[in-house]
């Protein structure tokens, strides 16, 4: 057999050590490079088709606006890997797994509590940080997860502020509803809010009683029966937890069935969204939404609002844009401080977040040991002439609430 071994190719201890060092350097280099300036790969999971498509698409506007603003405030750019959850919990789970397999170093999403819960399980199992943009079901941050963070109020927080703000609106107008009918979607968020109403409302000594609670499917095509049933209770006002399509359907039915309640008190999405305002025009005015909102006086709020107006003229800034943007803000801020995309270091950095220059109402963004931002505050907003005005809490308003709202038959 020919002997090819010679001095230059022979493997000895010194050569082996040198080779090992070279290989280690090559393998480690991408991590070092990533830590030094490569964009963090963020898997964005949103319901961009299916029943929540309109809201999912709206949330994505917050994603589109993020990078240029981050650049202007000295935060690192993010590499967005987008996935559509199709408004389906199982699809959300599988898309999260695929994003991680494809190299996502952090997950963000998913607007809906059910879908966010599924993604949280995947993120925790794989050890990848997950920053929730919008999802209010309390259990998500009650599981002892180490990689899940939520910069959005829980159902209890939303409800507490909602009842306080409602009392403020009633007091300002001097008119109180004596009874309401509670209409809510029967998805994860809707059920969490329903349970929350039962637990939180008694603490606020509200002037009204709930005459009847009516739940419905968020994908329902016709809500005439629901509105007939609600109307039959003779309640003064409507308390609602809904989504976008059903909010439009409910309004149509209210008009058709010639029922103008004192007002609509919404504690969820749908009623303040652009598609709602555009579809219903004058008939879209009046509903009060008690929602996580933004502080119009903050510098970053003005910057985000200007960027939104430039890219999408005529689109009102809303919860979807604000909290999706802020979820990415948390990611970029943590990546800057962690200086690495290592998931554990990134999660530790998120846990140590202390952002005071933000968009949403309240003192800023930080997380408790459960990964929940407990400092968030909610506002009361009202649809007025196709625009949204803030009517509570005191000190953060730019208009007075119109309560009771103008009857539907007086607007046409």
């Amino acid at each position, binding site marked *: 057999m020919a002997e090819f071994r010679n001095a230059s190719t022979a493997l000895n201890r010194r050569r082996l050590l040198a080779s090992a060092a070279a290989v280690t350097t090559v393998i480690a280099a991408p991590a070092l490079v990533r830590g030094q300036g490569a964009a963090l790969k963020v898997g964005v999971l949103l319901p*961009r*088709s*299916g029943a929540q*498509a*309109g809201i999912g*698409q709206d949330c994505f506007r917050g994603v589109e606006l993020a990078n240029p603003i981050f650049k202007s405030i000295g935060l690192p750019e993010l590499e967005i890997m987008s996935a559509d959850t199709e408004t389906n919990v199982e699809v959300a789970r599988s898309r999260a797994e695929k994003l991680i397999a494809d190299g996502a170093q952090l997950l963000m999403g998913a607007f809906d509590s059910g879908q966010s819960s599924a993604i949280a399980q995947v993120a925790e199992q794989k050890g990848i940080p997950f920053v929730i943009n919008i999802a209010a079901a309390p259990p998500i941050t009650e599981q002892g997860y180490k990689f899940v963070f939520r910069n959005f109020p829980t159902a209890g927080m939303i409800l507490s502020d909602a009842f306080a703000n409602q009392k403020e609106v009633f007091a300002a107008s001097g008119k109180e509803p004596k009874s309401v009918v509670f209409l809510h979607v*029967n998805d994860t968020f809707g059920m969490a809010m329903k349970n929350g109403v039962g637990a939180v409302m008694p603490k606020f000594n509200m002037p009204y009683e709930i005459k009847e609670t*009516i*739940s*419905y*499917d968020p994908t*329902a*095509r*016709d*809500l*005439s*029966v*629901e509105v*007939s*049933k609600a*109307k*039959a209770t003779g309640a003064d006002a409507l308390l609602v937890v809904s989504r976008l*399509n059903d909010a*439009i*359907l409910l309004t*149509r039915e209210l*008009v*058709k*069935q*010639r029922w103008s309640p004192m007002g609509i008190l919404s504690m969820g999405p749908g009623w303040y969204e652009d*598609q709602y305002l555009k*579809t219903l025009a004058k*008939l879209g005015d009046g509903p009060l939404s008690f929602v996580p909102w933004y502080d119009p006086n903050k510098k970053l709020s003005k910057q985000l609002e200007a960027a939104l107006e430039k890219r999408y003229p005529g689109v009102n800034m809303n919860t979807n844009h604000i909290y999706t943007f802020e979820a990415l803000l948390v990611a970029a801020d943590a990546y800057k401080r962690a200086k690495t995309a290592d998931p554990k270091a990134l999660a530790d950095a998120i846990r140590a977040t202390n952002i005071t220059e933000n968009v949403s109402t309240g003192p800023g963004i930080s997380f408790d040991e459960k990964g929940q931002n407990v400092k968030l505050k909610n506002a009361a907003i009202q649809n007025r002439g196709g625009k949204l005005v803030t009517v509570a809490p005191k000190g953060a308003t730019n208009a007075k609430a119109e309560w009771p709202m103008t009857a539907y038959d007086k607007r*046409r």
Partner: protein
Amino acid sequence: MPADIYLNVAISGLLTGLVYGLMALGLSVIFGVVRVVNFAHGEMMTIAMYLAVVLFAHFGLDPLVMMLPIAAVLFGVGYVLQLTVINPFISRPEHSQFMLMVAMAIIIVNSLLMIFGPDAQSVQVSYSFDSFAIGRLIVDATKLYAGLAAILVAAALFAFFKFAPLGKAIRACADNYTGALVVGLDVKRLYALSFGLGAACVGAAGAIIVLIVDVTPPLGPAYTLLAFVIVIVGGLGSMPGALLGGVLIGLTEAMAGLFFTPSAKSMFAFAILVLVLLFRPQGIMGKRLT
């Protein structure tokens, strides 16, 4: 609860049920003659709904006015589909037909998603928010017009099958395939005509229902399922059965929502289906096969 509420909800359910019935009528016609189960039925209806949306958005044409032109377009689509794609599958095993129709359904849903996107689209005609008040009774104007239009189309179809020579020929074809061939009927063309008529029914139903329901591409499979429930309850292949099934399901959903909980509406429709399958498997107006 005031008594008028029951009547309001019953009328609303009845009117919606009539449109459901018209949609299911198409499925029944196709199965009754061609003996192919159209698993793309709801998806074909969404095509009609989108046609109505586009015609309204771009030309301001009322879907009720455009009902016949849209039905004609769907007739053409159904006719060509039957002649070119479905006809070769007529003599093949049922699972082959099933796969073909399901594939067509998937293609339609995804094509609509690519063209129109996932957002719900609606038609807001001048009477979208109108209603008629008769004492304490309130009737939704769009549902009333939709229900009347459904009755008109169904009546025209019944008259066609009862009195027109072509309709009689199609019925002969459905009753006895070999006999129809023996007397010299062009069965292939009659099958295509039948499929076209079924598609026209669903086209008219789509143009009507878009007044009541916002359209999204994933709506198709839900309506295919609903059409099946209706025709099985009414009797597969029976035209009056399809209308009756539609009305029954519409009423059941509405009244179940009122008496129990609205989120369980569909459950009651399926409960009726189970009862019919248990006690009258051929459907309320179907003929028992010997």
